């Protein structure tokens, strides 16, 4: 569609252990109407698809040699005026990936519990929550055994360490993916 791209290579930031999100958002804000972003990363940046999707960008990801990825984000609606980063454009109907997530209906702080208690409490809480609601939880580690369980039960999630590197914050949206799909 558009050959007009700004290029951003976040691989050096990722390799030094940094968090490239600010650089990416900065680049998106600088885009002219109709312009796209060509991003280079060391992995397939799936969460970004959702984030930029909620800003009205489509994506096309290509794996490069050495396990790196190139992703082209193009404005989904090149209508008059184009799309700017400040503008949040509704995603195309039926594209669940592009939905903005609702505010969390429940918050949980599981930072002072030893494994597997955080997992037990989260799974117990989400069983009681209706479809589409979001649970926010704070943890002190990446809950690696929880994630397959969430996938099996058809919940979607996002998670990341806060900038201090000590608190892991995760959002779980109830029952929005096909169970076992992830």
């Amino acid at each position, binding site marked *: 569609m558009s050959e007009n791209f700004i290029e951003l290579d976040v691989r050096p930031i*990722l390799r030094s252990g940094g968090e490239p999100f600010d650089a990416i958002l900065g680049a998106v804000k600088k885009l002219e109407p109709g312009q796209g972003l060509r991003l280079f990363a060391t992995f397939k940046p799936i969460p970004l698809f959702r984030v930029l999707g909620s800003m009205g960008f489509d994506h096309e990801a290509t794996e490069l040699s050495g396990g790196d990825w190139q992703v082209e984000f193009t404005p989904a609606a090149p209508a008059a005026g184009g799309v700017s980063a400040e503008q949040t454009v509704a995603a195309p109907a039926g594209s669940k990936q592009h939905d903005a997530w609702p505010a969390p209906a429940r918050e949980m702080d599981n930072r002072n519990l*030893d494994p597997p208690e955080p997992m037990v409490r*989260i799974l117990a809480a989400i069983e009681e929550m209706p479809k589409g609601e979001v649970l926010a939880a704070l943890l002190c580690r990446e809950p690696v*055994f929880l994630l*397959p369980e969430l996938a099996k039960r058809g919940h979607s999630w*996002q998670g990341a360490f806060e900038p201090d590197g000590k608190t892991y914050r*995760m959002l779980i949206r109830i029952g929005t993916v096909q169970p076992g799909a992830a």
Partner: protein
Amino acid sequence: MKAHPPLPVSIIMAGTTLSRWTLSYFATAFVFLLLAEALMTFGVGYPAHPLRAPQTLFLVHCITLGWLSLLMCGALFQFVPVLVAKPIYSNSLPLLALVLILAGLLALLAGFLQLAGVLPFIRHCFLAAAVLLGSGFLLVLWILGCTLARARPLNLPACFVVVGLCSVAATVTFGSIFMLGFGGYANMPLLAELHARGVPLHVIAGLGGWLTFTAMGVSHRLLAMFMLSPELDGAPTRWTLYLGALSMVILIGAGIVATITGISLTPVLAVAGLAALFSLVLYAHDVLRLYRKRVRPVIELNSRMAGVALGHLAVAALLILICAASGVILQYSGALVFLVCFGWLSGLGLAKLYKITAFMTWLECYGPVLGKTPTPRVQDLVVEPRAGKWFWAYFGAVDIAVLCLFIGTPLIFRAAAAVMLIACVGIAVELVRIRRLVDVEAARRLPAGTRQPRLLFTLVAS
């Protein structure tokens, strides 16, 4: 409803699950531990036989390959994916690796029995051992290497594992050269020279680089996880890694050069040992911090017993230093190797095995129904006071055995080995009870939707 800003996420993980064959590795390893302790009880190998006698080599390889290496491989198949938050490269290849290593080990042990005159001459026994063990460990390296390669840039604990894996590659290579030597195949002067003088490199790369260094990296994360201590990744931890890696590079690199050029190995061992010593001091600093800064006031049996094993590592390092400084290290090398193998490595292995088995069993059995129905807690699968007695008996017997080796009282050593054997049978029974959920209240044992875990492997419904 107000839209929630997405998190600044850079990674969504595919998630890790349970390693299917880890328990098969643990069970096989445990059989070799019990076999080795029975052999010591009946006076086979050092101290009844000389250090380099075939009987001693038989015993030593039951311990280092059969018990410790299989235990470590099984633990890494479960632990590396958790460490790097990526699924394992293959969940079926570890079984093939286990079969290859086991076949290679049996061929190697048969080769030693042949040298001892117990078995008649078997042609190509050592060649088969070299090929089977080499390919088994190569497969282990391939599976773990591919898993780690997907997770670059690696975090600090994963870097410890990488150094450990490089060390096992070196250990197995040295070992294969020795096996070819035993079998009469290595007639090239270079290989013959390595066979004649390279044994210290093989032993130190195996016990130090592969088993101790990997255990240090793994215990770092496990102690933090199970005691709720802050993860350490500051300068001391980084320098523990750098100095440990440096000591292995010196040992293996300079060691090979010294061996084949005929230069004395002593300066190489001294410099590598110094780097290793500094690495251990920094590690001790980190470990003390982990125990002091823990959030949980009461710590579980596995972390208490890991502490005892860590104390044995400290004592072993100190004794090695003293013996080296006073020039008696060769005289006491058997006792020192025993202390490292049983006080430190086996002690830590048994302590963590107790927790990991309970955790994996709990996750396998109750994971699918968590939140849907009341389930037992992980701690309901174990009875710590009962298991604790076996652990104390084990460590007490190890200490007496070490003392006997230093002062030269082989009969009391055998009695101590018998107590070690009984204690380990006790711990094995505890592990089987955990796997069979025997200590869980009958009414809560198997709620609807769960099934009894298998004893020797893990089945996880996807």
